[in-house]
């Protein structure tokens, strides 16, 4: 049994945070969430569209006992993100908020200045703030000092499935952080999630890699196994890497015996 994940004063048995986008139905989402074992899910705040039916996602996840982490996706600046956070708090009755401010639609990279400003305001309003950020160790430290509940550095652009492209910087963030580190975005396969957790990330956030896979429910199960393996590997302590071979068998003694 591995250690529990601790986020904003709560404890979780599973280290996946599931994004709820791109599933074919609310039912498929709920099945995948269950198969993944995830106990935290993100969702977005949008204006009600009375003319278009949209799948109910809150209730099936609530029935599974999932903790909601609403996000500010769609916000182009700090002001819009703060507005979205206040709406999410009213709608869901939670003070958890994932701050996402990405004005550039091609790469959806987070704006560090607006993110910092939004986090400053939201921390002062008592929110439990989870900022989505570039894998920037300096920014991560500044946000930690503001009082953010965790930092969520990206591995690669959202939905790109390019894996842990920012690995060297993620390692520095993990080494320095005194708040949980959640690797968010870019995770394309179970092995990416496993690797991030093996290196000491506290959790990983996954959406597209499950929702857009050939079989989302089966893939969710694969991610569940990956997060278990990754965390267990981290807690066991990885063997160090070497540039050259290091014998695992007593080769020299064997040769000496044979030459007699």
């Amino acid at each position, binding site marked *: 049994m591995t250690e529990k994940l601790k986020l904003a004063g709560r404890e979780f048995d599973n280290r996946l945070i599931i994004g709820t986008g791109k599933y074919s139905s609310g039912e498929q989402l709920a099945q995948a969430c269950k198969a993944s074992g995830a106990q935290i899910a993100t*969702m977005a705040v949008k204006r*009600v569209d009375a003319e278009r039916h949209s799948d109910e996602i809150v209730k099936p996840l609530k029935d599974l006992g999932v903790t909601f982490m609403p996000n500010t996706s769609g916000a182009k600046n700090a002001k819009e993100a703060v507005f979205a956070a206040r709406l999410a708090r*009213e709608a869901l009755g939670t003070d958890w908020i994932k701050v996402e401010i990405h004005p550039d639609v091609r790469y959806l990279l987070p704006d560090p200045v607006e993110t910092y400003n939004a986090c400053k305001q939201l921390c002062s309003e008592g929110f439990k703030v989870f900022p989505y950020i570039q894998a920037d160790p300096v920014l991560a430290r500044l946000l930690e000092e503001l009082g953010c509940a965790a930092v969520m550095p990206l591995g690669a652009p959202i939905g790109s499935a390019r894996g842990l492209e920012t690995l060297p910087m993620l390692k520095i963030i993990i080494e320095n952080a005194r708040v949980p580190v959640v690797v968010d975005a870019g995770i394309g396969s179970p092995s990416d999630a496993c690797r991030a957790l093996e290196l000491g990330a506290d959790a990983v956030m996954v959406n597209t890699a499950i929702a857009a896979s050939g079989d989302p429910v089966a893939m969710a199960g694969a991610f569940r196994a990956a997060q278990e393996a990754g965390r267990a590997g981290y807690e066991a302590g990885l063997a160090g890497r070497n540039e050259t071979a290091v014998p695992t068998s007593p080769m020299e003694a064997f040769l000496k015996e044979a030459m007699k």
Partner: protein
Amino acid sequence: MRVTFNGKEDEAADNTTLLDFITAKGIKAEGSAAACDGDVVPKKEWGSFKLKEGMSIDVFNLVAGG
């Protein structure tokens, strides 16, 4: 009176509260949030919050997203 609802022109009777307006739209209060003229109105105030001529009302809920 004329109001704007989620960016579109709409009508509301005099003395309509925000709760009346939202309920009449078939929107459940649970899981929703509302803002009037850009300010979030706490749910506990919906029943006493009176709409005004020209007011802009926006109602939000949670949708799938990463």
